[in-house]
């Protein structure tokens, strides 16, 4: 069975540019969450989506946005990139939202901002 997939694997951008990261959840999972992991730190929650609606948002600026599609895949968008946005961006999928539901992580997208 395929796990959570993310694309691209690596990405290099320059300051001020825009980036779109993509995530496909495990088949049957309807909730997708995004996390940012800066080198040497634990993942920080950015967004959670369930049934195409935003269900939670972490302490990130409005430059960060996301959406979930009818097939439950998701995109994370970051505008006006800053050097500090360099990180591993992780997508996690879970079966449901609103109950304790195990989250399965993808391999992440490594974003480098120059």
């Amino acid at each position, binding site marked *: 069975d395929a796990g959570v997939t993310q694309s691209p694997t690596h990405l290099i951008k320059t300051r001020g540019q825009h980036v779109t990261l993509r995530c496909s959840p495990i088949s049957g999972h309807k909730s997708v969450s995004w996390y940012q992991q800066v080198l040497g730190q634990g993942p920080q929650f950015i967004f959670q989506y369930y049934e195409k609606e935003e269900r*939670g948002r972490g302490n990130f600026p409005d430059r960060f946005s996301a959406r979930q599609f009818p097939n439950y895949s998701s995109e994370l968008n970051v505008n006006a990139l800053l050097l500090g946005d360099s990180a591993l961006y992780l997508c996690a999928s879970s079966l449901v939202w609103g109950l304790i539901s195990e989250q399965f992580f993808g391999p992440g997208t490594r974003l480098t901002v120059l």
Partner: protein
Amino acid sequence: QQQVKQSPQSLIVQKGGIPIINCAYENTAFDYFPWYQQFPGKGPALLIAIRPDVSEKKEGRFTISFNKSAKQFSLHIMDSQPGDSATYFCAASSALENNLFFGTGTRLTVIP
């Protein structure tokens, strides 16, 4: 503000040893406490998780001990192996918010 505090930052043990990683939290609404293992270049993988209605849970060589009154929980790895060398993260969440709050991670090295 770090919602989940984790220690130590790094740990080195001999093969067969029992590394112990500790975490503490403040938010009493947390009711789910998972541990994740992460290898370089990979996403975190769930190892074991506990709910606050039990004080201990074992799965294979991994054991979580949970102290609700102290708001602390810990991971013990029995008979540690070199293949266990990885970064371990504790986390916490509640059914209300559903998102995971992670600790800062413990880099474990098991020496053959």
